[in-house]
């Protein structure tokens, strides 16, 4: 536990009795299952999304294993039938998107960190927060039911009329599951939106919010504005499939392209639900681990909002070949680039933050650097897809698969892991072994690139996605990719081992191991049940002069002679 002399104005981590920490203040199954504490809900979410990630990962490995060889001359695959393969990628995509990546950063890490970082006692609606978690569970149960009832083979995009008339799998339960998960996500969004507006302690103006909170704010805006449209789309599809209403089914005079408008009106903004919180974590980590004030705070904050809002105008870039009119395609293509600009701004701001810093290569920073590398590739390849002429060739090939794994895995997953390693000591009060954390990260990095880099080439050469088998010239790329996937598995297993070890044997974490200036580091690790007895003093969240290294606690403590600098 850290101790220090108090300076007027600066806040000291209060010495709290052990029993006060949120993990120990009560015990028993019900104390978790019925908890309204955002921290416990965050931890439950964390366990839940990691389980989903593991399951989705297993499906991915099945895909990759099958693709090691093309089907033989009789059409038989290595160990899957075409139908099973189709179910694998559909469930892989649906689980990864709806159960893992969308709730990952906001609902797991965000839930835990956001109120503490803000200096609030809880989110605005704790009960709604718990509801959101249980809705996630119900959604997950629906997906499990889908697994029992013969899978899902529509792809995660549920395009009609295949999904409404032809598929023989459990489409309706899957749609219901995704519908419920949508509401789980909406509830998180509403909660965060209100918390950030109404629960800010005195002095915490909008432009003093840490960038992680800006990211969550922008995310919440998308969750509230876009997710309901997913809800109604899925509901209409349920009705279409069950009763044959005819809105999307051409056999009844409906329009399948309209369905795609409905789907992507949500699902494009949803990719920014996935990346914005990730970018926000990177802003925190890079500043802290470079020991530098973040560069261009306002530009970063505003670019998050810009991405969130512009992200609503570009959905049609998924539909350039769908039969959408050239007029609409042109509008969507032009606007697509307008969303890419704020992302570029962020990248350059992060770089400048590192300039003349004192860069600590801890595990979170290694992940942040990995993010920079992988997200740049993922984002830049998005430009090939946003360009109408080239997307015609690249659409629905492995080039797209590679693009979105680079942004979702290389981007969001890497940021998620950066955040997990960053806040782990705060969440569980334990330090982890830096060395094996970094080894895991590097193995995963190599495995990831080996998996998905070859896919760019086979994609631009014409390998279509969602293919159970393929023509021989693509074999070498597929084999590299499969080997990469197993390497990635090894890397992630090291990560999992490292984290479990830390729980079992880790050293006790100081209140502020990395020397960050945001408020969550002002309370003990793990935080007390009430977060803060008194609202903490709010200052510039990136003024790292506030703290200094204290060899006694092996952490940072508040500097006694600290005077807040006027500049920002």
């Amino acid at each position, binding site marked *: 536990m850290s101790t220090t002399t108090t300076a007027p104005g600066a806040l000291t981590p209060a010495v709290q009795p052990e029993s006060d920490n949120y993990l120990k203040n009560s015990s028993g199954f019900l104390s978790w299952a019925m908890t309204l504490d955002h921290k416990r809900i965050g931890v439950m979410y964390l366990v839940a999304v990691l389980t989903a990630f593991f399951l989705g990962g297993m499906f991915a490995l099945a895909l990759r294993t099958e693709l090691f060889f093309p089907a033989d001359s009789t059409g038989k695959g290595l160990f899957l039938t075409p139908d099973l393969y189709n179910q694998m990628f559909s469930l892989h995509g649906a689980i990864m998107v709806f159960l893992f990546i969308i709730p990952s950063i906001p609902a797991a890490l965000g839930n835990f960190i956001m109120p503490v970082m803000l200096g609030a006692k809880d989110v605005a609606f704790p009960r709604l927060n718990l509801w959101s978690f249980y809705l996630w569970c119900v959604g997950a149960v629906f997906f499990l039911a889908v697994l029992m009832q013969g899978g899902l083979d529509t792809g995660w995009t549920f395009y009609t009329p295949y999904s409404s008339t032809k598929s023989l799998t459990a489409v309706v339960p899957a749609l219901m599951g995704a519908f419920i998960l949508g509401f789980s996500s909406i509830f998180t969004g509403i909660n965060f939106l209100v918390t950030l*507006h109404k629960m800010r302690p005195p002095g915490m103006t909008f432009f003093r919010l840490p960038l992680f909170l800006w990211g969550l704010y922008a995310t919440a805006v998308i969750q509230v*504005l876009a997710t309901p*449209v997913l809800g109604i789309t899925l509901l209409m599809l349920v009705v279409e499939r069950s009763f*044959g209403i*005819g809105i999307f089914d051409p*056999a*009844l*005079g409906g*329009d399948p*392209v*309209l369905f795609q*408008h*409905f789907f992507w*009106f949500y699902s494009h903004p949803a990719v920014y639900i996935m990346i914005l919180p990730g970018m926000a974590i990177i802003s925190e980590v890079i500043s802290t681990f470079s020991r530098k004030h973040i560069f261009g705070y306002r530009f970063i904050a505003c670019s998050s909002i810009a991405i969130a809002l512009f992200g*609503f*105008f570009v959905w*049609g870039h998924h539909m350039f070949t769908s*039969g*959408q*009119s*050239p*007029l*609409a395609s042109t*509008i969507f293509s032009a606007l697509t680039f307008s969303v890419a600009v704020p992302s570029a701004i962020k990248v350059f701001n992060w770089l400048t933050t590192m300039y003349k810093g004192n860069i600590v290569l801890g595990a979170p920073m290694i992940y942040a650097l990995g993010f920079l590398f992988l997200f740049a590739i993922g984002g830049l390849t998005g430009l090939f897809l946003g360009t109408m002429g080239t997307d015609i060739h690249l659409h629905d090939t492995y080039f797209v698969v590679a693009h979105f794994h680079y942004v979702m895995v290389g981007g969001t997953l890497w940021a998620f892991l950066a955040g997990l390693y960053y806040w782990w000591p705060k969440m569980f009060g334990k330090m982890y072994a830096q060395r094996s954390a970094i080894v895991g990260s590097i193995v995963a990095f190599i495995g990831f690139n080996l998996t998905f880099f070859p896919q760019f080439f086979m994609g631009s050469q014409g390998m279509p996605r969602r293919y159970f088998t393929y023509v021989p010239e693509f074999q070498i790329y597929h084999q590299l990719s499969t080997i990469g996937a197993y390497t990635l598995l090894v890397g992630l297993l090291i990560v999992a081992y490292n984290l479990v070890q830390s729980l079992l044997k880790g050293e006790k974490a100081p209140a502020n191991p990395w020397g960050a200036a945001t408020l969550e580091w002002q309370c003990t690790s793990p935080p007390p049940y009430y977060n803060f007895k008194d609202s903490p003093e709010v200052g510039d969240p990136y003024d790292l002069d506030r703290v200094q290294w204290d060899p006694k606690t092996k952490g940072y403590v508040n500097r006694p002679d600290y005077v807040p600098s006027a500049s920002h």
Partner: protein
Amino acid sequence: MSNAHEHNDISHVAPVKVLLGVFGALIFLTVLTVAAVFVDLGPLNIWIAMGIATVKALLVALFFMHLAYDRPFNGIVFMAALVFSGLFVSIALLDSREYKKNVDDFRAVTPLSIPAGK
């Protein structure tokens, strides 16, 4: 009723006069919409009906829902909903109109027939 009674510390209290007045206006506008149907103005009819509906919606939002007295931010939030739904509907509509010809051409050759009981 004296003004002192009409006060609440937390939020604005809508005066009875306003409530009844708004209600009266809403009923009047409903009658007006129904009446407007009997006048054939071609394509204008729909716009008149929607226009009246919008006036009604505004009345409800401003007075019953207190937006006229509320924090402006709540109004902005609500406007966002309308703007984004408008965006969604209008672009989807624009696109379907653009490719309508491809559908019509096809249907001219292959008329739609919906089997009974399907």
